[in-house]
């Protein structure tokens, strides 16, 4: 019996080693270990063995062999499964350098992105964003801003008129007056930032547009000075162009401010050393600013003896053009996807 068992074992182990198909493993399990297997049949004859010792020894051997076959089957099955997985993974290999499935990417207009950024800088400093109308009366666009009829500043801002009394606003400064009269109504402090669309009668070319945008700031309270204007403008410039940017105020003239100042930022390209963009000066002109003219405060219902204020304004188109090196102001309105999709 012993020989029979050992032979069976060798036969089974040899067969298992030769299996190359995971499906055949189960078959072998039945064949070598099942109730109807040769091993079962041989061990069924245990009872016929003469001595207890013999029966015990053969029983132990039988179990040993069962275990060996089971182990061999499990090992072989694991081996085959691993090989199969490996083969499948190898077959599933892809070219990962192929492009991903495209997702349609949307874009906010670059100009509005810049305007939003400016708004955020000022909102963080406690400013309200105020907007107002684009078709405006002569009073709100000019008279209330200390630009009476016949004032040369009216020529400088060639206007598009609907009628004698109504025009397309030439600047966002009308929002100052409307905010003072319609929202603030004499309350202080006033801290607003006014983005918006403005219009001038101009030839259109790479640097001139009939329709463009402005962002204007206005602060009114007791004891407001040019020094705090400098501070606020510095914050803004750094928020937009980075922490190393400085600003400079230069005397200038605007009818609605006195004293008035042109505001420059230190050149963002050369850091102030002088380059082509800043024409060697180290400074780039950004916009205008100044202390609100007493006549403007009065028009807005404030007493210039009681409060003072400052205002500034500039073009976000220019800021965007500087930030990204955009060469033509017309790109903002043509709607060319090759332009808009870059931002």
């Amino acid at each position, binding site marked *: 019996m012993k020989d029979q068992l050992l032979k069976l074992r060798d036969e089974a182990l040899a067969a298992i080693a030769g299996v190359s198909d995971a499906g055949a493993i189960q078959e072998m399990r039945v064949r070598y270990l099942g109730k109807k297997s040769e091993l079962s049949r041989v061990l069924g004859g245990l009872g016929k063995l003469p001595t207890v010792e013999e029966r015990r020894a053969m029983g132990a051997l039988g179990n040993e062999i069962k275990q060996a076959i089971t182990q061999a089957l499990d090992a072989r099955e694991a081996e085959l499964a691993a090989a199969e997985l490996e083969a499948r993974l190898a077959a599933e290999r892809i070219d990962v350098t192929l492009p991903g499935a495209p997702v349609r990417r949307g874009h906010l207009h670059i100009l509005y992105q810049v305007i939003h950024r400016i708004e955020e800088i000022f909102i963080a400093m406690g400013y*309200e964003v105020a907007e107002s109308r684009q078709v405006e009366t002569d009073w709100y666009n000019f008279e209330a801003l200390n630009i009476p009829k016949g004032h*040369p500043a009216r020529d400088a801002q060639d206007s598009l008129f609907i009628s004698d009394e109504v025009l397309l606003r030439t600047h966002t400064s009308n929002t100052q007056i409307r905010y003072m009269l319609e929202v603030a109504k004499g309350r202080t402090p006033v801290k607003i930032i006014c983005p918006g669309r403005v219009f001038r009668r101009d030839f259109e070319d790479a640097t001139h547009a009939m329709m463009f945008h402005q962002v204007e700031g206005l602060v009114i309270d007791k004891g407001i000075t040019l020094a705090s204007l400098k501070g606020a403008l510095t914050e803004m410039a750094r928020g937009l162009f980075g922490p190393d940017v400085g600003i400079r105020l230069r*005397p200038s003239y605007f009818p609605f401010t006195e004293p008035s100042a042109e505001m420059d930022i230190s050149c963002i390209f050369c850091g102030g050393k002088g380059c082509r963009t800043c024409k060697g000066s180290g400074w780039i002109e950004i916009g205008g600013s100044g202390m609100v003219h007493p006549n403007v405060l009065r028009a807005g219902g404030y007493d210039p003896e009681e409060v003072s204020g400052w205002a500034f304004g500039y073009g976000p188109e220019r800021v965007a053009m500087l930030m990204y090196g955009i060469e033509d102001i017309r790109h903002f309105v043509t709607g060319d996807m090759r332009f808009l999709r870059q931002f």
Partner: protein
Amino acid sequence: MRVSYNWLMDYVDVDLSPQELAERLTARGVVVENLVSANPGVEGVVVGRVVAMERHPNADTLWVCQVDVGGGEVLQILTGAQNVTVGALVPAAVPGSKLPGMTMGVKKLRGLDSHGMLCSEAELKVGDDEDGILILPPEEDLEPGMDIAEVLGLNDWILELDLTANYAAHCQSMVGVAQEVAALVGGEVIAPETYTEDAPDTDVNDLISIQIDTPDLCSRYVARVVRGVKIGPSPQWLQARVRAAGMRPINNIVDIANFVMLEMGQPLHTFDYQKIRGQKIIVRRAHSGERFTTLDGQERVLDENVLVIADAEGPVALAGVMGGEDSEVTDETVDILIESAHFDNINNRRTSLRYNLPSEASKRFTKGVDPSGCVAAADRAAQLIAELAGGMVVAGHVDAYPRPTVPSVVLLRTERANGLTGLKLSPERMAAHLQSLGMVVLKPADLAADLALGAPETGEEAGEDLSGRPVWTAMHQVSPVPSDPDAYRTWAEAAWAELEAAGKRLASLMGAGVGAGVGAGAIEGAGGGLVGAGDAGEILVVVVPTRRSDIAIEVDLIEEIARCEGYDQIPLELPVLPSTRGGRTRQGEVKLAARRALAGAGLTEVLTHSLVHPRVYDLLGLPEDDPHRRFLTLANPMYDDRSTLRTMLLPGVLDVVRYNVNRQIRDLAIFEISHVYRPVEGELLPEEPLMVALALTGNLAPLGWNSPERPADFFALKGVVEHLLAELGVQGARFERSENSVLHPGRQAALLIGGEPVGYLGELHPTVQERWELPGRVYVAEFAFAPLMDAMLPQAVYRPVPRFPAVARDVAMLVDLDLPADRLEAAIREAGGGLLEEVRLFDVYQGERVAEGKRSLAYHLVYRAADRTLTDAELEPVHNRVREALKALGAELRS
């Protein structure tokens, strides 16, 4: 304004290079836009004297000149110019010298050597004349061999000023700029001499009288006469000055008039005195239809809007714009009438624009000229004419000055100056700055002293006693005062009124402490007047020269102080303000959210022009009575394409589609959120509602190697609209079949919010698509933004996350084609009640496998109870109600 550096240095002694000067002026608000060398590239060219000349043996048009080029050297130089004569002084570009763009050498011309060349104005780039050689005036101090660049004033720098409106007036002369330089960077002003050596026993009043009919348009007219002049070219120095300013030398008289204008800022006109008829100048409005030939030979038809200078018979000049042909100074002129007048800036500008006659003179009048300078300018011109053109100056001026300009008296509270600027300057320093600008700074007590003496006797200036009247004295000193007795009387009346007004302002500034008293007493009551009351700190009484017409109120002075001190001296402070809650308006917030939602859905934002051509409404095929055709039109459009304000966004968005499609960008998903402009009956101003526009065309997703094409269609567009509504939390939105002629009749819907239509969406009508030259189908939407804002949930409504499982059921059915899907869904939801959680349409089919006139729809329904697991027994009756409801609508259930 072009300022020659060398010339400027005649009037101010500062030790700064042109570059330093430009930098410092710019920083102080007198912006030097460009600093350019006056030398265009002339180097080594010398003055030559033609000592002999003969015709070239082999060329009729060439001359062979022997030219003394200095240092005893005589060179043979050939020229084709025909204006050279023996003895003439000419620019000789000798071998080795340089002209703009070339270096000279020895060149053979038809067999003869030319050692360099003789130069025209154009070759030296000092003028336009290219026909003849530039002949230098025969002057004693010109020698052969002198550097021509030096002689022509080319070794100079030109400061091109870009003047803001407030400096434009007083900085449009060399003296004016010199005054700014002195104030801003230091140095003394050297004023030009304005004396004349008058001929004895003459009186200009015997020769001419002035009558001003329109004092509103001509506040002053000063005339002088110089007799017996000889017209000829100006000396080289004068020509160089005129050229440096960008003007062209003409003859000595015209050049002097221009020189004085450039130097002092006062435009002058010179008449041939003999051609003035009736010894009379009348300043008046032209008669309607009056004809007049200006000195450019053009006959002009005038009307009442034009101010003319006339003699006894008719116009002789368009005032301040251009003279007449008949009275022009010619080579035969011997007697000169100098006009030094002040004309209204607006009228002058209109006339110069109307006849398209821009000139240095009208440019100056437009910006504003100081009337106080009329006499000095006339004197300067008279003296220069006498010196350079011979002749004698007739004694006296005729000075008609019906509307005198007087110095302003402006009060400055020093505390306020520091309070507005953030500077901390002493009153003394402020006073010093103002004095450097030519102002006189006094104290309230001074003004009180003036007022205490009462109005002065204003007979004749000569007899008037100024002593004890500090402000009055200053008003006499800051700007020239008219010497003509009548003119002085009117001046003095106006000046005293100004002084009294300043007194009243001062009294009211100090009023709180002194009571209601006005005038000297009140001011003195305030403690000797040296120091003002209360917070104002010290008060300075500032007398401002008339040339600074831009300075009228306190803040104007504060700006001058800050400018002189330097804006760079202003400290940098963060505003110390009560903290406020910043933020956008609600519309601003929602607009930004909507933009982000649409961009997040893969759309690109565009920004189109507010101004459109009205033909866009024809291209859209809008009916004649469509309300969008009621638009605002510009009275003065720049371009036809930008002549009206849009009433809808769609045309602009379609233009963007066409622009891109024409450039092979065919897959587009774009949006715009912006304003349109709609006139309102009976209102001055239009409504400016905010609109949302969308357009889709081409493939929806960018094409990849493994993604299927998905062309845009109505439902893609509707999906975007639904996405936006969902992102904003808009409630009560509905889509309804609509009839919009712009859109495909079968593929369009109205968007309703709260039952009210707010816009449309759909496929562009094929005829509109064709008219807009669009090759493919385009899906567009436009709707009002405000109703969306009004229908938004304030915030999302939370429901607890489900704890019990859901049960799903599908229902497929056949229905009539014209039964809208939203009715089926509404029926399902109603019947499903509270247990029905989700209804999703997952299949729509019509075609071969279903009967004609029918379509198949399949819905996936999800049921769930919040507090238990649903059992079949519980669900069945509910689901059956759904099935029955569908059957009631005529659906034939298939599962």
